């Protein structure tokens, strides 16, 4: 069984070519307007909303990235990842098969317990690495950390880029770094966290996206969840335009992962609308779309319970992650 996203030709990268992003206009005001009106242009209700929420659920990278993570905490998260919906909800929704989340995302030292807890579920383990979240440890250590996580069984590595390379326009350094990380990943997929809250301008976001993809990223991801501003719709829109442009030039489909700040079912629907409107239905599926979140799942469960029962549900009624 393929883990989500592991069924497509991988991005082989291209030589660094700044002409793909330098001089590309990104007008922040217009992007903000589009992002604001986009989610007001589409609405999903009733059974359609329930279906969309199930879809969102399957795209979640269920995440714990806290200093107090323990193997026990990770096991509980994995249990939720395997079976996010209760039996009665599953029955009410009449799905073909019980859904799982897209992946479980943890720190490198938590990969082993996660892999064990998810054995046989088909849910891959993703590990952050490379001195997450700041990414300012020496490059050899960052690469070694990737190797460690892969060795522990991580199928996906969420790396952080050196923001300094973007802020100082050192595209070659950024490219070399991500390329080296991609090599260290081996068969594991590389998700490049751009930490867009640190990059500030949308032109920086576009350029960093393009360099990461040229260096071989399989996914581009907005945020660590630790910046002041995490995933926003305008930033996501710019990243989607970048990966579409990259795809048009190379034929590769790059995945997208917003992370941080998506907490409500409504957020999840908004991002799914963004994906569908900008890139089509294929980009609403978890091989090309992930949502980095922890609390989101509970809100989705509550909305699904409301659909199934017609009553508003209490959060304590759902098994916690």
């Amino acid at each position, binding site marked *: 069984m393929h883990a989500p996203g592991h069924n497509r030709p991988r991005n082989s990268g291209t030589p660094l070519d700044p002409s793909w992003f330098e*001089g*590309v*206009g*990104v*007008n*922040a*005001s*217009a*992007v*903000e*307007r*589009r992002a604001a*009106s986009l989610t*007001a*242009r*589409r*609405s*999903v*209700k*009733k*059974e*359609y909303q*329930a*279906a*969309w929420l*199930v*879809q969102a659920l399957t795209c979640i990278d269920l995440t714990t990235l806290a200093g107090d993570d323990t193997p026990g905490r990770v096991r509980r998260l994995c249990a939720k990842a395997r079976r996010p919906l209760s039996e009665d909800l599953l029955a009410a*929704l*009449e*799905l*073909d098969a019980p859904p799982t989340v897209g992946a479980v995302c943890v720190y490198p030292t938590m990969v082993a317990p996660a892999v064990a807890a998810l054995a046989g579920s088909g849910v891959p383990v993703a590990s952050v690495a490379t001195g997450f979240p700041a990414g300012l440890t020496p490059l050899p250590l960052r690469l070694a950390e990737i190797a460690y996580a892969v060795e522990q069984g991580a199928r996906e590595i969420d790396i952080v880029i050196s923001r300094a390379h973007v802020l100082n326009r050192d595209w070659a350094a950024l490219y070399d770094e991500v390329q080296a990380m991609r090599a260290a990943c081996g068969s594991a997929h590389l998700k490049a966290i751009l930490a867009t809250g640190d990059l*500030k*301008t*949308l032109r920086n976001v576009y350029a960093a996206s393009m360099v990461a993809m040229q260096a071989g990223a399989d996914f581009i991801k907005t945020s660590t969840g630790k910046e002041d501003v995490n995933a926003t719709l305008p930033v996501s829109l710019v990243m989607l*335009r970048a990966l579409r442009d990259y795809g048009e030039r190379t034929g590769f489909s790059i995945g997208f992962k917003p992370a941080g700040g998506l907490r409500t079912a409504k957020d999840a629907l908004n991002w*799914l609308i963004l994906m*569908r*409107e900008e890139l089509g*239905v294929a980009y*609403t599926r978890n091989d090309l779309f992930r949502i980095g979140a922890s609390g989101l799942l509970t809100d989705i469960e509550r909305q699904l319970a409301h659909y199934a029962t017609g009553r508003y549900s209490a959060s304590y009624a759902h098994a916690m992650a």
Partner: protein
Amino acid sequence: MGKIADILKTMEYGPSPEASDAVRAWLLLHDQGFGHFINGAVTKPGALFEVRDPSTATQIAAATQGTGADVEAAVAAARAAQPGWAALPGHERAKYLYALARLTQKRERFLAVLEALDNGKPIRETRDIDIPLVARHFYHHAGWASLIASEFPGSRPVGVCGQIIPWNFPLLMLAWKVAPALAAGNTVVLKPAEFTPLTALAFAEICVEAGLPAGVVNIVTGDGETGAALAAHEGVDKIAFTGSTDVGRLIRRATAGSGKRLSLELGGKSPFLVFDDCDLDSAVEGVVDGIFFNQGQVCCAGSRLLVAESVEARFVARLKTRMARLTVGAPLDKSTDIGAIVDPSQLRRIQGLVEAGRAEGAEIFQPETKLPATGSFYPPTLACRVEPANILAREEVFGPVLATMTFRTPDEAVALANNTRYGLAASVWTENINRAYEVASRLKAGVVWINSTNLFDAGAAFGGYRESGFGREGGREGLAEYLTVADLPRKPVAANPARFSAAPGPAAPGLDRTPKNYIGGQQARPDGGAVYSVRDPQGRALGQAGLGGRKDIRNAVEAAAKATGWAGATAHNRAQVLYYIAENLSARAKEFAERLRAMTGEPGESEVEAAIQRLFFYAGFADKYDGAVRAGPRKFVTLAMNEPYGVLGIVCPDEAPLLALISLVAPAIAVGNAVVAVPSAAHPLAATDFYSVLDTSDLPGGVVNIVTGENDALALTLAEHDGVDALWRAGPNAGEKRLEEASAGNLKSTWMLGEGVDWAQAQGREFLRRACEIKTIWTPYGE
């Protein structure tokens, strides 16, 4: 397998209808048909016409066809209510406007659904755009009501306003008309469009709920005949019309010479300029908001896409992809992008124009969008390879149809953009601010959106250049349309009118010196070569003047149109030239005074002195009559720029032959116009002497052109000339009707000053205001 599993395969949005129960219940209450709203009460329904939901082609209501008697009653009610309404302290009027805003807001959802049902536009637009802007407009003007006394001291309301509004933004256009009128102390008779009367009738109920005094707002429903009756009614002091250029022309003719104030917001063929350095994806979204908003039934729709040839292929490819994602369907569905065309007749018009465009060589693209089986729907349409002569490049389609052309350079982009009879709006996409403002300044358009499109705010003036009409709505400029800001000073008209005869007559005794016309900075013999005799009050020949004709006016207008450098000169520079003219006039004051005395029999010294003062006054103003930054939406710099009309025709009275000429010409050129002036026919010699003053004052050739001859005939030629952008005329009222009728050709702005103006007092901002049109430039900022 369940429904959810099915949906997961396609990820369709599914239906998402907005509830319409409250609206349908309201319509049921009125199932006997709607009457008018006159003098605070609803009239009994009369002869009814059907009101249909264009998305289903079914009748949803019936409204009364307004008769002449209905209009009469409404105007009478408005007239009776007007003094009391105007006499209320501004604060009291503000409270009513505030109540209208609040009540609109409280019924936002109801009005949004009603509008979508009646007009066919998507609920997203009525909910997120139309109705919030309505409330904003009433709030903004509640503010003005409080401020008029202090912000427009000495002003007074115009009186009874007849307002005729279109079907594309029914309630928003009502707000644009009613709010400023009421704030300024006017009362109104409003006629909504026959296709879409329902939100106006709902607004009548809001007026009652707000306790608005009876007669302040009157609403008469009906078709064009009702509108014509209102436009022609003698008891109406002002007509404000929004609609097609053709109907605007009819109204211009119908109101000609009546002394009615007139503002016209008409059609457009607005350019949407995409430069190669812009954010192409955002520009694609701009196109969506520009031409597919409200099914393209928007007067300022960006209907001509001008795209840099170097990015055309990429841009058009992205646009096509985007168009394929637009949904066309039920207006009340929250996921609908494009709703119904307002009426089958409009749908047929769109279909006809697209076919004609195709026949003329346009390549038509329509995505495979599913259209509903019934109702009036039209898919988003892109016409590529549209040459400037193509009907789709010239005619306003008023549908979701975009005509595409390419350009190579910014100069060419501007030339193509301005290659139209219209001048309502424009949208400029570039990441280069120098280029953005260069292009914005050269576009002939009343509104320019930089990296944005179709944005509106109650505080920002909206209105067109050229055949897109005149007058502005919104903001300070819009309010001024509903005020008499300053009455012209008047004095009794002379008992013995000056005499003029075109019959050949003698020259002055002595050496013959016959002045010629002054065109393009050169003296030019009248085309016909004829002259006429200028006489003193005793009938003695003082000399001769050229008997100018049509071709002289033509030549003068051509020279004026070439004098574009004047508008581009710095205001400081224009001021210096005006000072220089004053200086040179002063040096020859004695000679001018003698000339005036000879022609009029009056001592001329004070007139010459007043003329010098007037030149100083407008020289002083040249670099101070500047624009403003409007407090609109956040993160926009919204500029209100005063721009000269271009070529201004000026027809002078017989009174104060030098002073009147200078009182009219000086403000016109101070702001950058080029003028064609027709001096008093009876007393032309001060004007013809004056051109030698101009010659020595560094005034560039063509900025002031002087054609002497029979006043009314030359004025008519100016009024008819499509290259004249505005016409001022001071003279007996009897001549005004013909001129204003003739001005309908290119819908030039006219200012009829009448006779008996006290020229010694006639100066002020009003002259500058009349010499400019407002260009509103919206520039977003953000990083």
